[in-house]
């Protein structure tokens, strides 16, 4: 089911193969080495060399510029082995290089695109320099200033909590460039090697609780001259560019977290099969099986949403803004809850930084960084809020997304970042597809499950229609925020239903077992988010997850991963 559209230069071996067995204590890229590097707060050098050799950076560079970036979904799945091994390796090596470069692919001129492509293909890094501590997600109050001065800008100010600032060849800098209302900020590409050494410096490292191996610091500029040729797009176009490139990076960041939970699930399943309690293995205890299969179901639901949104970036670019926000809002929540449930099964072993299961506590610390990094949940909800009316309209229209959005194996048109919009336009097609799929299911229990989402959509549409404009911005009340949560859950349900609907004949995704489990769990969340109606977990039946547990064991025994695309993993079979 993987795309066969590989590009010249793609290595023969997968990263999963190159990184080897994580549980092999002698593996320089295994869990033991990962944990030791984490203790030292260092990047894992051996694994970074593997990524160098695999030319990971080529994944960040569009095919047209000599790299391997084609479908966004492939970027996510090709990086999955890295995040399965060590999220700090993935972030630390350079996902931020991609976040920075996306701005260049979008707004840069040919020369800038060429330079950045060459730089990345040489194995160098770019920092993405938006963040200022005082302003968080509030971009428009960023203070770092770049004053136009002939053929250069004079930059003063600081960018803080910037990954790889100390070892990047350059940065994409979000700077205040003027006072014209609506045109105050611009993006610029800065190659730090060419700057006068006495006018800028790398800030001391910011130590973090999770992702301890990442080299996070920042930049300080003091009247530093920067060539005007670095300006990306027009003066004052920074926010437009940023809000488009964020759509890609939000989707990618959300999707990368799946690898970490895949690894955590494998870790706890291993524990459950080996640990004897009360005269049997933990994996024989119904509660433990339910938790493990439930996490598997949530992982599949998250994958469906991520992949659908990744494909929407290509196929439905005018709607992608709220999709990207929804995926970055919901998926980290699903993943964090999954870790919490797994932790209950793993018990005290999940609290140790040593021993066979120590990777679990590291993943527990690393994941929240991915959730907060590059726009936390609330910022994403604020992106969705003003776009809710398009959702309400879709509840009463027949506009449906094209089937290609859900057919994971299908090719997609090249990513056109310029086609992305800051705000979604028109009726929401994925919501339209939710209604179509809900009507389409033939088995009675799935019709009933789908009916829950359909009914919720109509209720949601009524509430959106009644929402005054003041409730669609930062002053929105808690009930208004809850509508964005319900929207994200409906989107996930649509992704699951339609993935199943458009994969007839697929041995796994074409079956109903996973769909039933995924939907029943999303329904419980939806009921919690809709506080105006009673809900009881009993209403959704209990054995939805049982068949999925069988599939989980089958995959573990066959050496396969736990995401929607069935792919081989290097972990030992039990």
């Amino acid at each position, binding site marked *: 089911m993987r795309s066969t559209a590989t590009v010249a230069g793609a290595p023969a071996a997968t990263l999963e193969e190159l990184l080897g067995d994580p549980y092999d204590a002698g593996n320089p890229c295994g869990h033991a080495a990962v944990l030791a590097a984490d203790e030292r707060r260092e990047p894992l050098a051996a694994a970074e060399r593997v990524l160098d050799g695999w030319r990971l950076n080529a994944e960040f560079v569009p095919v047209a510029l000599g790299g391997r970036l084609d479908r966004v979904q492939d970027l996510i799945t090709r990086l999955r082995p890295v995040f399965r091994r060590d999220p700090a390796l993935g972030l630390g090596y350079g996902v931020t290089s991609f976040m920075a470069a996306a701005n260049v692919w979008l707004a840069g001129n040919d020369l800038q695109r060429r330079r950045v492509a060459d730089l990345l293909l040489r194995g160098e890094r770019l920092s993405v320099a938006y963040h200022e501590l005082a*302003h968080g997600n509030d971009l428009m109050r960023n203070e770092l200033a770049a004053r136009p001065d002939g053929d250069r800008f004079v930059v003063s100010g600081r960018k803080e909590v910037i990954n790889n600032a100390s070892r990047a060849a350059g940065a994409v800098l979000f700077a205040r460039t003027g006072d014209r209302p609506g045109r105050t900020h611009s993006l610029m590409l800065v190659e730090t090697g060419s700057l006068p050494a006495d006018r800028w410096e790398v800030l001391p490292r*910011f130590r973090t609780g999770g992702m301890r191996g990442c080299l996070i610091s920042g930049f300080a500029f003091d009247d530093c001259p920067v060539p005007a040729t670095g300006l990306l797009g027009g003066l004052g176009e920074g926010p437009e560019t940023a809000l488009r490139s964020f759509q890609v990076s939000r989707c990618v960041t959300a999707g990368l977290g799946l690898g970490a939970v895949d690894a955590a699930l494998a870790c706890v399943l291993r524990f459950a099969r080996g640990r004897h*309690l009360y005269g049997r293995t933990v994996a024989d205890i119904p*509660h433990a099986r339910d938790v493990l299969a439930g996490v598997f179901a949530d992982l599949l639901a998250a994958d469906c949403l991520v992949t659908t949104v990744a494909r929407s970036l290509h196929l439905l670019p005018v709607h992608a803004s709220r999709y990207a926000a929804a995926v970055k809002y919901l998926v980290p929540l699903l993943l964090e809850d999954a870790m919490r449930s797994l932790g209950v099964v793993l*018990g*005290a072993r999940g609290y140790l930084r040593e021993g066979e299961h120590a990777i679990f506590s590291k993943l527990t610390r690393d994941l929240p960084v991915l959730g*907060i990094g590059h726009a936390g949940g609330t910022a994403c909800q604020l992106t969705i809020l003003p776009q809710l009316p398009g959702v309400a309209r879709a509840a009463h229209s027949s506009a449906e997304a094209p089937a290609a959005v859900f057919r994971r194996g299908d090719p997609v048109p090249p990513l056109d970042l310029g086609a992305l919009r800051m705000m979604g336009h028109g009726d929401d097609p994925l919501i339209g597809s939710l209604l179509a799929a809900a009507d389409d299911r033939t088995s009675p229990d799935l019709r009933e499950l789908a009916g829950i989402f359909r009914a919720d959509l109509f209720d949601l549409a009524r509430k959106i229609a009644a929402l005054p404009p003041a409730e669609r911005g*930062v002053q929105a009340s*808690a009930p208004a925020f809850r509508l964005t949560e319900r929207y994200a859950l409906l989107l996930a349900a649509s992704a699951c239903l339609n993935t199943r609907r458009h994969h007839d004949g697929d041995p796994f995704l074409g079956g109903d077992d996973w769909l039933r489990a995924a939907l029943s769990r999303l329904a419980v969340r939806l*009921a919690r988010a809709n506080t105006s109606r009673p809900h009881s977990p009993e209403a959704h039946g209990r054995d939805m997850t049982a068949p999925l547990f069988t599939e989980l064991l089958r995959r573990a025994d066959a050496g396969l991963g736990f995401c929607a695309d069935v792919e081989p993993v290097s972990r030992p079979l039990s």
Partner: protein
Amino acid sequence: MPPTPALSHDAPAAGGVPGAPAAPAAGPFPLAERLERHLGDPAGTAGPFTYADAVRLDEESLFPAAICADLDEFGLARHYVPAEHGGDLARYDEALQMTRAVARRDLTVAIGHGKTYLGAVSVWVSGDAAQAAALGATIISGVPVSWGLTERDHGSDLLAGEMTATATEDGYRVTGEKWLINNATRGQVLCALVRTRPEGGARGFSLLLIDKSTLPEGTVTCLPKVATLGIRGADISGLRLAGAPVPSGALVGREGGGIETVLKGLQLTRTLCAALSLGAADHALRLAAGFADDRHLYGRRLADLPYAAHTLGELLADHLLGEALALVAARSIHTLTGEMTALSACVKYLVPTLTETLVARARKLLGARSLLLDLGVGGRFEKLERDNRIVSLFDGNTVVNLHALINQFPGLARAWRDGPQAPLEAPPEGLRVACDLSAPLPRFEPGRLSLVTRRGLSVLRALPHAAHELDTLARATPALRPVADLAARFTAAADVVHAAMARQEQSRMDVPPGAYELAGRFTLCVAGAAAVALWLGNRETWTEGLWRDGAWLHAALTRAMDGLGEPVPGDEPPFPELAGWLLEQARTGRPVSLVPGEAVPS
């Protein structure tokens, strides 16, 4: 939003409202307030107990020895020893508040020091008077005691324990290993659960109070400190015994009574564990409130954004719901001792779980700051979240506690069914005393601890009566109408939960997963009922601030209803006002608690 006068403790005090910074402690927990004053301002640089030290010691994985020595000097260990055995422990609610005062500064210290109580509890429950007096003297002299229950391969499955004691002429010879034991290395005395019948079984285990300093060389080995996610400075290690000779006087209770004693002791320790969660929540709420107060986003103070204020209000409500349950449960140790088997499981499941969610939501409010160790409060927050995760894992984890409740479903459901038939029956005296914080507590009698709750939980049986009482009060005071209506709905919701419990099939081995969820809902019923009872029990003592018009009860019950999946029609609870109160408490250093208290710098 500005601090709402209606919820400020500065409001004119009717009936001697505590909260004014008057010198002598007037609150219900004078010893805890004395400890607070002794510990002083942890945000400062002076004094042995500072946040900065706690974070530094954690980073270096060093035991907080100097801080513990200061606690010894204060005499905290005396409070681990019951008064009848020579110590100062007379009230378990006060013990809860004292541990909480330590925990809100640092969980490593609270756990590392407080562990001695866990080590000793078996003796308080089943030991003879001479043994208890001797252990009391040992503890008061500053010797740490640890509790050796778990083994490497068996975790919470105590009946699978392999450490074995073989009878000798004058005692036992003990061989085996205990692992993941708090203070196993630092502790001089270990209370170990050992197999005394080769075939094991419920009567096959006993407890031995082993003094390591008396063991011959070569018979005892301390295992290396284990690296942990949180409380990195704590001494989590183990002990290996190889033919260690232990005198017969070391036996706690009778031979074969080990499991029963442990199960009774856990009823006390699981209840007290709430202090650790409450302390962590105190700390997290202060940090979140301080951040929301200072932080400006989108041109406004974060605390003024409605969503942020609502979130803070909800977090506080969750905290108060847990606090109400913990306070009622800790006092019930004295007055409803026979109910502790179910009540302690409720506390140990719900309070840590609520707190984990609370801390995770507070983290999202703090955003990137929560993860940056060197900035502002980041290091403190990041540490407290790691530390707090252990509370739901030790001393009986989430699954163990829910399972204990599931086993009691038939009796609990029967008691509920029989209870509401007499809604006007006054609550039993034991419950009245448990819920009135100004009522003196009778002495705790360990002999009344039981392994089954025969007549259910009084606090639940009394819920219909309490809802009725609220309704009566609301007739005279219309401001109480929303909370009275909510209490009636809550009672109906509890009825639904109990009906499902009655339907639950009992199966020792294959407990269906849904039963765990149901047990979790049951604990919310207990917590909500405790909140109602606590408000009614103290509404004449405290009439201002959070207590006025049932403000905190309205919010806490709404959160319990949310957890039960029950809609709450009618007025939104005063979450923004609660947030305003929280900000004010954080600014002035007053406790983030239902119990008004004096300001303590923090």
